[in-house]
C-alpha cells in the first residue's frame, strides 16, 4: 500500500497574528477567541486595513498579538474609541475586543450608544462572568449565587442585581445588523462561534452595519476549576443563564 496524495496543511497559525506569545493563563478561552478572530481577518483578507481596539484586562496586550494596526482604549471606552476611528476613516475595519467588566459595567453607556447608532464596527464581547485580570471580582455577568472575591458568599441578586443579559439588551435596539451569543465548550460550538465571528466581520466589510458577538468563555483561574471542568460548567450551568444563538441577523 502506498499513498500518492500530496501533503496538505489544514491547520496553521493565522497570518494576522504576530509571533508574540499570548499572556493568557493556561486553559483560558481568550487564546482560542483571539485565534478565531485572527482567522476571520485572514479569511476576509482585511489584515492590511484592520485597526484592533485592545481592551483593559486580560487581553490588554492584544494590540501586540495582531499583525494589524492597534490602539489601546481605557476601561470601558473601546466603543467610543472605535467610533472615533471609524468616523475619521470609514475605510478601516475596526474591531473592538472587550470583556464583561469593560463592556457591561464601566462601558455600558458607550456600548449601548455605539450599537444604537449602528456604528459599522465589530464588537467581540468575551463573557467569562468574572474580572480575570484584577483577581476574580464580581462582574455584571456573574451568575446568581456564583462566588467571586468581591461576593465571597455568592452573588445575591437582591443586593447585587441579576446577571446582565448584554446580547438581549443590544438586540432590543433598531440599528444593529448582527447580534449573537456563542460558546466554546465543545468542537461543535467552536465551529459555530468561528462562523459567527466571520459573519460579524463580513457584515462590516460589506457595510451592513454594527455587529456584536458575545462569547461565553471560561476563566479556569478565576473560577478555580480545571479547564475541562470549566467547559463542563459552561455547558451545564452558564448556558442556562445565557442561551446561545443568533438574536438579530439583518444581513
Amino acid at each position: 500500500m502506498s499513498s500518492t496524495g500530496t501533503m496538505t496543511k489544514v491547520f496553521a497559525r493565522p497570518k494576522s497574528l504576530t509571533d508574540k506569545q499570548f499572556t493568557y493563563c493556561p486553559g483560558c478561552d481568550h487564546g482560542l477567541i483571539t485565534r478565531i478572530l485572527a482567522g476571520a481577518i485572514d479569511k476576509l483578507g482585511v489584515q492590511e486595513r484592520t485597526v484592533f481596539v485592545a481592551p483593559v484586562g486580560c487581553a490588554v496586550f492584544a494590540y501586540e498579538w495582531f499583525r494589524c494596526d492597534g490602539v489601546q482604549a481605557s476601561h470601558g471606552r473601546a466603543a467610543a474609541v472605535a467610533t472615533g476611528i471609524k468616523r475619521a476613516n470609514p475605510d478601516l475595519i475596526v474591531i473592538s475586543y472587550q470583556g464583561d467588566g469593560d463592556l457591561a459595567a464601566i462601558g455600558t453607556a458607550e456600548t449601548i450608544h455605539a450599537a444604537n447608532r449602528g456604528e459599522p464596527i465589530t464588537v467581540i464581547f468575551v463573557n467569562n462572568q468574572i474580572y480575570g485580570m484584577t483577581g476574580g471580582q464580581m462582574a455584571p455577568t456573574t451568575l446568581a449565587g456564583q462566588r467571586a472575591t468581591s461576593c465571597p458568599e455568592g452573588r445575591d441578586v437582591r443586593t447585587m442585581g441579576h446577571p446582565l443579559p448584554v446580547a438581549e439588551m443590544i438586540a432590543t435596539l433598531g440599528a444593529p445588523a448582527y447580534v449573537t451569543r456563542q460558546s466554546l465548550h465543545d468542537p461543535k460550538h467552536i465551529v459555530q462561534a468561528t462562523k459567527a465571528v466571520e459573519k460579524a466581520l463580513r457584515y462590516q466589510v460589506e457595510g451592513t452595519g454594527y455587529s456584536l458577538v458575545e462569547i461565553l468563555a471560561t476563566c479556569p483561574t478565576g473560577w478555580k476549576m480545571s479547564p475541562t471542568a470549566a467547559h463542563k460548567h459552561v455547558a451545564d450551568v452558564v448556558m442556562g443563564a445565557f442561551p446561545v444563538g443568533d438574536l438579530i441577523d439583518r444581513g
Partner: protein
Amino acid sequence: MAERQLMTGNEAMAEAAIRAGCRTYFGYPITPQNEILEYMATHLPKVGGAFLQAESEVAAINMCYGAAAAGVRTMTSSSSPGVSLKMEGISYLAGADLPCVILNVARGGPGLGNIAPAQGDYFQATKGGGHGDYRLIVLGPSTVQEAAELAALAFDLSDQYRVPTMLLADGMLGQMMEPVSLPEPRAGADRPAKPWALTGAKGRNPNYVASFALEPTVLRDLNLKRHARYKEIEAREVRWEEVATEDAEILVVAYGTMGRIAKTVVRQARNQGVKAGLLRPITLWPFPYAPIRALAERVTAVLTVELSAGQMWEDVRLAVEGRTPTPFYGEMGGVVPTPSEILEEVLRHV
C-alpha cells in the same frame, strides 16, 4: 486681507478650527459653549468632516482619541464640569502622544457652579487634571480675534509636539460678539507627517497607539522622552503680551477676559499719572516665568488679578521669587469685577 465678520467667540473658534483642518468633532451640550457644537453640526459636514454628538463628555473625548489615533485633526469642546469628565481621556491622549484640541469655555465652579465666566479651571488645565506626569499646551485668548487665531495655532502646536492642546476661554469670551478676521483656510501639505497613525498596516509594520508600558524602566523612559519634548516647548513656545511695561512702576498680570479688563485699567491708571503696565500671558503652559521675573526686578509690586481665588497667582509668585511684593485681587463664582474696582486695587499698591 480677510473680510471682517461679527461673530461670537464660540462661533469664531469653531470656524477657525474648520479652517485649520479640523475634520472630526465630538462633543456634548453644556452651557456656555453650545454654539461650538451647533456650529460644527452645521458646518463640518459641508467640508466632508464628521460631526457626532456623543452620549457623554467621556465618550466624546474617547472618540477624539480614536480619530486622533487614525491621524485626523480632531477637536472637542466643553465647559468646566464637562472638562472634568474629559480628564481621563486627556490623560490617555497625553500618554499615547496624540494631538487633539480641547476648547474649555469655562464657567463658575466647583461642582455645577453656574454658567457665568470664571478662571477657576487654571489649576486643572495647567497642572494636570488627569492622572500622571503630563502637560497640556494651554492657550488663554482674551478677544474673539485672538480666540480664532489661537484655535488655529492650537492644531499646529498639537500636531508638531504631539501634545493635547487646550484653549482656556470663558463664558464671557464664548458669548461676546466682536469683529473678527478669520484665518485663511490652509491646505494640509504644510502639516507634519503622521507615520505613527493607524491607517491599516499595508506595506509596513503595524502601528500601535497605547499608553501602556508594564515594565517600570520602559515607562520611565517614555515619560523622560515626553518631558524632553515639554522642555522644548518651554524653550520655544512661550507667548505673552506686554502693555506699557517699559517704564512701569507697578505690573499687573492677568490673562483671558481678566487680561482685557486689566488693559483698560492700565490705560486708566496712566491717565491718572500712575505708571502701570500689564503682562498678559497668552500661553498659560508654558508660562511666561522669565519675562515676569525680568519685570519684577524693576517694579514696586506685581499685582495678579484673576477670576479665581488665586490659581495663576501661584505661577506669578514662582516667577517673582520674592523680588518684589505680589498682591492679589480676585473674584469668584462668575462675578466679573469692573475696571474701577481693579484700578482702586492698583492705586493701593503704588
